[in-house]
């Protein structure tokens, strides 16, 4: 429409603080998630230092509990999920031929809410003590607020308040992010891109977003109830006034189990993309992959009690959930076989991305099999709260999700940054991390079977636990070195010019049809999709580019805004107000948020346009 605005354009820091561009937001998520990954990794190293030898007194008592709590919480909520969102932001709109997500403003809001939630929780280190009730925050440990019963907490009474507020704020961000990607994928696919032609990463992003929308409200309710108990004297979890702790466990795990599928499904998507690209073969069994993903998502809501087998719910409940848990292994197995059949007979290239992806497959299977072992309630009565469980979930989360995320980084780095990460450094990174990973967590299966409990800050000599713990610590350091090599890779790549080509891997999907890094408007003309593996289809038909679905025209772009940041800051401030029970601060914070919402509602900003003349110039530049 011919109404020219002077485009509001910022540069430098303001550009990043006000951006609503999904590509920049993806980079923000990656940087923030990467930062918190280092924080969580440091916490892990400190834990392993303490546990390297029996009877050490380096990090003990409540300090140790803070380390384990923050390691888990940070890694899951502030490292893994943001990096997942980084890829969803960077890749999904490109894979569906769209110019941005459905709600660019809300996208930015989601980032700032997550980031400030993570910052809030981590300020606790400097403000008297971090949360220390485990990443699962079980009541009644997590409801202790008065000094007299706080001796076990070594007077770190406020720690859990940071957990409650930080996660609520970050959780809202994740929820709106989920809604955003669902609407984007439903409403904004390019012409010809039916659901059964979507790339697997977009499919997994879609199902993951659905899981987020249906699971996050449960943790929100759990956290609200915990907050009401802690800050307003509620009685949800206070047995003396009729409260019930099993209720917390149920609410937490009704969220918590789908959460782990939220974590792993995107990794499954990444593996599907990489394995097929680097075998030069179509993904084997695409329809069954889609169906398996949907089934895993659905079943993920039916298994949460397997985290609670020992709470005394009885054999009927335990049996139902045991069978449901074992059932999830079936669609997961379908996926594993499909990847193997994709690789089989393909022209395989072991780029770093593919090395990580193929290493994922057996490692994740190892984690999955211990999962099936844990699914048997009788056996779980032995495994529960031992290092066997720790080994299981680290195999699936680190050996699964994290390997998948690293794979995705090497794969999509050129599209995001216009540069290729060094393959040599990449392989070094891989070997240090992979060997370190197995050294760290494989012995932990045996430590658990030999009786070492979880969440203990030391163990006694003479129980055969020394060797396993020492090897585990060595492995952790190797993973640390691998991570440092990766950082070196990033930094040295950063120094180089942006020379990546549009399609460095001979890719199959739409993101490889546009320059690297992607231009601001993504697609000069929305492409027409004629089949699965949209770009490959055109390549096989002899075309160098996608067929456009529309003439070149002026492109509408959303305006940047500082309001997502201010809205999030308001909640951040209010969070501190709640924690310290200074209700004026709460008022100020809420006012900042509400005023920002008011401004957003009242001032309709219709964005700005990139005109066709500028498009010819813009070519391959960001």
């Amino acid at each position, binding site marked *: 429409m011919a109404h020219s605005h002077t485009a509001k354009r910022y540069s430098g820091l303001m550009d990043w603080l006000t951006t609503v561009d999904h590509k920049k937001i993806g980079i923000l998520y990656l940087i923030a998630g990467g930062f918190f990954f280092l924080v969580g990794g440091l916490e892990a190293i400190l834990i392993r230092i303490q546990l390297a030898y029996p009877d050490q007194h380096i990090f003990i008592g409540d300090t140790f509990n803070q380390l384990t709590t923050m390691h888990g919480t940070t890694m899951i909520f502030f490292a893994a999920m943001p990096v997942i969102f980084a890829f969803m932001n960077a890749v999904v709109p490109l894979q569906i031929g769209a110019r941005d997500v459905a709600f660019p403003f809300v996208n930015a809001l989601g980032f700032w809410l997550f980031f400030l939630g993570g910052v809030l929780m981590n300020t606790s280190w400097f403000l008297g003590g971090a949360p220390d009730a485990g990443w699962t925050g079980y009541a009644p440990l997590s409801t202790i607020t008065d000094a007299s019963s706080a001796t076990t907490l070594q007077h770190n009474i406020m720690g859990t308040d940071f957990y409650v507020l930080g996660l609520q704020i970050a959780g809202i961000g994740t929820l709106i992010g989920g809604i955003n990607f669902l609407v984007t994928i439903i409403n904004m696919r390019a012409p010809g891109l039916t659901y059964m032609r979507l790339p697997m990463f977009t499919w997994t992003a879609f199902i993951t977003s659905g899981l987020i929308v249906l699971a996050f409200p449960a943790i929100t309710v759990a956290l609200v*109830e915990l907050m009401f108990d802690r800050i307003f004297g509620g009685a949800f979890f206070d047995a003396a006034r009729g409260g019930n702790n099993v209720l917390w466990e149920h609410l937490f795990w009704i969220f918590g189990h789908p959460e782990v599928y939220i974590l792993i499904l995107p990794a499954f998507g990444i593996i599907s993309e990489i394995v097929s690209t680097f075998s030069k073969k179509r993904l084997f069994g695409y329809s069954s992959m889609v169906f398996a993903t949907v089934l895993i998502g659905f079943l993920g809501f039916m298994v949460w009690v397997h985290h609670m087998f020992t709470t005394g719910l009885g054999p009927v409940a335990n049996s139902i959930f045991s069978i449901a848990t074992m059932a999830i292994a079936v669609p997961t197995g379908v996926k594993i076989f499909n990847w193997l059949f994709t690789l089989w007979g393909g022209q395989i290239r072991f780029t770093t991305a593919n090395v990580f992806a193929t290493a994922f497959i057996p490692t994740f299977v190892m984690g999955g099999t211990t999962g099936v072992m844990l699914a048997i309630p009788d056996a779980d009565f032995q495994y529960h709260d031992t290092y066997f469980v720790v080994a299981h979930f680290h195999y699936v989360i680190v050996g699964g999700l994290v390997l998948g995320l690293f794979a995705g980084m090497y794969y999509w780095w050129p599209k995001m940054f216009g540069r290729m990460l060094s393959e040599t450094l990449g392989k070094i990174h891989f070997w240090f991390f992979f060997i370190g990973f197995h050294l760290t967590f494989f012995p932990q299966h045996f430590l658990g079977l030999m009786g070492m409990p979880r969440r203990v800050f030391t163990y006694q000599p003479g129980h055969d636990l020394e060797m396993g713990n020492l090897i585990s610590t060595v492995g952790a350091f190797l993973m640390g070195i691998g991570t440092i090599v990766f950082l070196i890779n990033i930094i040295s790549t950063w120094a180089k010019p942006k020379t990546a080509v549009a399609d460095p891997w001979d890719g199959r999907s739409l993101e490889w049809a546009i320059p690297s890094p992607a231009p601001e408007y993504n697609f000069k003309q929305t492409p027409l999709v004629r089949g699965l593996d949209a770009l490959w289809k055109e390549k096989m038909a002899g075309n160098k580019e996608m067929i456009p679905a529309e003439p070149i025209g002026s492109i509408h772009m959303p305006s940047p805004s500082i309001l997502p940041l201010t809205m999030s800051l308001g909640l951040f401030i209010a969070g501190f107000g709640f924690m310290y029970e200074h209700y004026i601060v709460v008022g100020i914070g809420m006012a900042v948020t509400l005023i920002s919402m008011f401004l957003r509602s009242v001032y309709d900003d219709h964005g700005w346009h990139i005109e066709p003349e500028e498009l010819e110039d813009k070519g391959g530049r960001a």
Partner: protein
Amino acid sequence: MSTHQTGVLPAHPETATLEGKNKVLGFWLFLGAEVVLFGCLFATYIALRNSVPDGPTAEELFKLNTVAWSTFVLLTSSLTSVFAIMAMHKQKLGQLLFWLLITVLFGLTFLGMEIYEFTEYVHEGHKFVTSAFSTSFYTLVGFHGAHVAFGICWITLLILQGLKKGLTVVTAPKFYVAALYWHFIDLVWVFIFTVVYLMGKVGH
């Protein structure tokens, strides 16, 4: 820029643009999340509804005639919001804003009745901190009330925006989505009066 000629709007202006379609779909998905949210609050309430070691129980406390009237008020406000959207589809801005105003007034009445009800309960010894039952009662019903209050502020703001900007393909999705929200909180109330008040009166 969007057309300000309100006479030439499409039949369903709220979904006439991609932006409008996105907003409406996004809001439905948000309502799906809210179903889970209220569902968990209901689950908590159901688990704790008889946990009154000390303090008044539901059976002793609830006054069904107040609840019946506030139900009637909220239900009627939902109907008036339907009229508002019908007016929007007929492109009658004046009627749209009028029905929204009536909706807001009914909403305020509902809230007033609920606040009065809560103050009565507090005087009868049913405070937030009294028992697990009371905490979960005030949390569930209070969350609903907070949603009503937010809706009232939101719709009032939209009425003012409607006066200023008129009915366009940009403002139409806002009205539509607010009406969906208002229906939703009425729906939640149907379950609250059933599960909390009626079942509470039936007793342990």
